[in-house]
């Protein structure tokens, strides 16, 4: 059990959608949010295929926190197309302290539920939401 975990659960729907993204590559990203009334993480939005990283960045609300997974596509040194799944925690400074706290404290538990996440990104403002940062992490 994670330290100071908040006891927030995970809706099964999250895992199913994530599996679809991982195996069937149906969507480039999924955005999750915490439903405080139900004490669990639920699916917020699913990206349509063909959407770019910019679309994804726009889909994240400005003054609120979210979790997201993003299927990052890149070409490696041998010129092969590859993808890596990123887990992104979006906690902008403009969000309420309480929301930031819940998201930060429940992240570990939620991430462990999603099997197959390779890399992680923490973002607290728009400048940290950058394809460049992902590229750096991949290599």
């Amino acid at each position, binding site marked *: *059990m*994670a*330290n*100071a*975990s*908040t*006891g*927030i*659960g995970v809706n099964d729907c999250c895992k199913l959608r994530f599996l679809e993204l991982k195996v069937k590559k149906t969507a480039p990203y999924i955005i999750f949010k915490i439903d405080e009334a139900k*004490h669990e993480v639920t699916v917020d939005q699913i990206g349509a295929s063909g959407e770019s990283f910019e679309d994804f960045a726009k889909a994240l609300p400005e003054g609120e*926190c979210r979790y997201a997974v993003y299927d990052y596509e890149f070409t490696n040194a041998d010129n092969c197309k590859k993808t890596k799944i990123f887990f992104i*925690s979006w*906690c*902008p*400074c403009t*969000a309420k*302290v*309480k*929301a*930031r*706290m*819940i*998201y*930060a*404290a429940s*992240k*570990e538990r939620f991430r462990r539920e999603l099997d197959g996440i390779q890399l992680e990104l*923490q973002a*607290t403002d728009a400048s*940290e939401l950058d394809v460049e940062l992902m590229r*750096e992490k991949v290599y």
Partner: protein
Amino acid sequence: MYGGDEVSALVIDVGWNTCKAGYAGEDAPKAVFPSLVGVIEKSGAADGSAAALGNGDVEMGDAEEKRTGNKPGGDGNDKARKANRKLYVNALGFRRDFMEVVPTVKEGLVADWDLVEGLWEHAFRERLLVDPREHPMLLAEPSHNTNSSRETTVELMFEKHQVPALFLAKNAVLTSFASGRATSLVVDSGGGSTTVAAVHDGYVLRKAIVRSPIGGDALTEAMLNTVESMNVMIKPRYSFKRTEVRLGEFRVTDLDLPNTTESYRRYQQRCIAADIKESVCRVADSTFEEKQYQNIPTQPYELPDGNIVEIGADRFRIPEIIFNPSILKSIPGMEKVAEEQGRISGLPTMVLESINKCDADIRRELFSGILLAGGNAVMTQMKERLEKELMEEAPQAARVKVISSGNNIERRFSVWIGGSILASLGSFQQMWMSKPEYEENGPSFVHRKCP
């Protein structure tokens, strides 16, 4: 599992300088009072006069004795020792004969459990007006807390205060969560010391904790010595009487109070010096150099006795101690402190040292999430300066980002606020260590419940 959803929890953070207490779910602590406690060793004369001078202040001593007396099985020795000491919590504003001022916390850890007890009691009974038996309790603890100290806390809380449930959370973790990061480097610059701790996925990496004794109090001490070296006496408020002779004209008469202890006089002077520090000091934009600041205009500060002291280059020199402790040697009266402490690193060096002790995989993430918090971090320009120095010294590839709340209250109380939110989450209720659990497993169970 503890299901006390409807009763709000209490959150307490005992720091070196102040003790913060309040209800979970609120955005600032309800009660903030000094952690330093006035102590009178009972030896006849002092007792009577002190009791007579009660004057509306809190008298912890009496209340405490009564309570221990009622408790069956109270330790006899303990009681005798307590009876010989009278504690004055949050009553330092009033001078008492023979009263010594004693810090509760030393080097970040509890030095005297009786005093902590006193602080808790004061918070419950006098400030929050609650019965601890009815509220779950979340206590913030220093990141480098020892196991035995944690067990003592648990024992005291369950046995003496009979709390229904308890949770201990690490300072650095709470600060980190309050800013929305599960992984970050927390730079907590408090009153008595500065602690740099790495938090990864909600856990403090104990190996990477770096501490230094330079905190707000060291700066205050430096300010006090600097002012004294300018041949200005900082007269504590209690030591004189100021009367208005004519409109706008005052006469100061010194009072003769031979029984005042040295520690109390020093404490009162420090309070004034701290106020001077807070009003005039700011961190220099780049490394402080005597020459550059020789001609800067001085800033006046009016002391309680009406004298005015002019602070010039020292406005910048004193905060510089945080970044470059060797400057302590150039401040009159502080040379000894500098020698005693041996080698102290400046803040940027501490940050780098701590990051380098961590696993190479997470270093980059730590560089981009350095959280500045604590009472001392309120100092103007501190964040900008730290960011600048780190950028110069960090490896090329690392993106350095120092984050601190723009709101001074959030900076000062980040630990408490973190605790307040955590304890107010409905879903957090299952995480408490409850009384039945304590009774079944003993105090060491805390290490499992609150890792």
